[in-house]
């Protein structure tokens, strides 16, 4: 995959952090406003994808990206699983909302819900990035 022109590179370098911040914001406020781990995760994946599209990737970076995506995906979903299992240890129920609910309608409230959103955000962003990178490296022989 080749990169794109200098203008595209510059613009995507400027856009990249803001998309990332927006994604993180949506994930962290998932229990208060519309959106959540899934919507934010897709945005973050979009930010990574933008960067790869603009700068291009050789075989080594692609392989590394694939491995990182797999790793991120596994870790994200494992965290979600782990939060669920922690409920059993804490109070005897799978997926028990065991953390203190805190002050309603504040950023740090609602117990495990924001934590779950973060875990889902990691999983989804890595998963979509994995889909992108796997499908983009596919070469259809010489038929393109």
């Amino acid at each position: 995959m080749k990169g794109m022109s200098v203008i595209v590179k510059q613009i995507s370098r400027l856009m990249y952090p803001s998309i990332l911040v927006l994604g993180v914001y949506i994930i962290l406020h998932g229990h208060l406003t519309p959106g959540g781990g899934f919507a934010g995760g897709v945005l973050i994946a979009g930010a990574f994808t933008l960067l790869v599209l603009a700068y291009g990737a050789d075989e080594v970076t692609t392989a590394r990206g694939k491995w990182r995506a797999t790793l991120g995906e596994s870790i994200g979903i494992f965290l979600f699983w782990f939060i669920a299992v922690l409920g059993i240890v804490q109070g005897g129920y799978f997926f028990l909302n065991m953390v203190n609910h805190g002050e309603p309608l504040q950023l740090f409230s609602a117990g495990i819900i924001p934590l779950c959103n973060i875990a889902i955000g990691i999983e989804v962003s890595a998963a979509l990035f994995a889909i992108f990178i796997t499908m983009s490296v596919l070469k259809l022989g010489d038929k393109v």
Partner: protein
Amino acid sequence: MSLLLYFIIVPLGGAFLLPIISRLRESLSDWVGNAITALLLYCSVYGVITASGKTVTYFVGGWRPIADIPVGINLVMDGLSGLMLLIVNIVALLVTLYSVNYMARYTDKGKYYTLFLLMVAGLNGVILSGDLFNLFVFLEITAIASYALVAFGIEDEELEASFKYQVLGGTASALILLGIAVFYQTTGTLNLADASRVIAGIGHTPTVLFAGVLFMAGFCLKAALIPFHAWLPDAHPAAPAPISAMLSGVVIKVLGVYPLCRLFFNVYGITPLIQDIFMVLGVVSIILGVFLALSQWDFKRLLAYHSISQIGYVVLGIGLGTPLGILGGLFHLINHSVFKSLLFLNAGSVVYATDTRELKELGGLQRKMPVTGATSQVASFSIAGLPPFNGFWSKLIIIVACVQAGQMLFAVLAVIGSILTLLSFLKVQRYVFFDALKEKWKNVREVPFLMCVSMIVFALLCIGMGLLLLPQISAVTLKPAADVLYTGLEYATKVLGG
């Protein structure tokens, strides 16, 4: 920690970590896969023995019903779930054992075991779920994992079969989901036990029945009953042998027959009309399935058509609605899981040794592959219903139940189906294992040790499972399962109490 949770947590956790583990060292995935399925088998045996027909309900997240209306998701383990869990996990363990050598021919074993564990987790989730939408979610996990597994060899034929499977499977899922939407709009609840109460209150209104029709179409498509069978004869033969064994052995039953029984016996309440639909679908599948099988010359494709035919017996038995009929149907369900898995593993061994599935090209393998040959004879006699193998007992019970219920025509058709099955398997035995040994199979050798072990255990199960009918053993396995269906609407009280 409740026993029920192990069935979901353990395979899911294993599957989430396997991509990392297998990257470190590929051979570890064999160990992890087998250890997890072994643990699950232990749990299900333990569960069946200790539960002894009681109904255990587990409220996920601690969300107990508020004002008697469930707000969260609950898991339910009763006699029927116990029996299904037992058979799923037996087949899963033996199949992973078989996979150790068989899948060495394919690349990327780590992904294979990941998908396999996800499939098993999905099956267990469907069986344990007490919530309609949750059942759908786990059904999708199993379905997606099996789409990918069917095409695991990524050859032309496998991709094509899997694509067909995906399109029809996706249609089935859409029908089921639309059914859930209509169902929710009418009853206002997704919990099966709660819905059962609501329906008892409002009766079978046209809306409820419309949802029922959608469920019937969707789940029949998943169970591959004729006329919804188009995907099965492609998908099951194309998959790697262990996956064929899982698909034919347990997946079509857990995704198709089990939800049908749950919904129509425990939630809707069985009526003569629904029984008639079950029985007619069953008989048509028996007869047409076996006729289609007779004309096949591809080993695995022939077995796939027999799966349709044998599922027909299960649905016919359950559809009779009498205690004996339900017992026979469920008994045939688990018997079929055992002997059909074994037959697909036999076919896999033949393919492993010779690389062909064409019956006409094979011949005389009995002397070269004694274990495969002997076990396949056991399985063939079982599926054909010869005494004293397990298939004989369950078919006998179903036929007797038909006669008792006054359905003479169905009884006769079931007998005819059984005879045709025998003919078809005599053909298989003759062309594959007997006849003269062909020149090119001079150097064929028996398959590796672990594959033999797996097949021998299955064969022993085929011979021994008649013992399940002994009163003491039946009291903890078959009887509670049949009671769950026969007592029908008492499900709601058993699950939610009061």
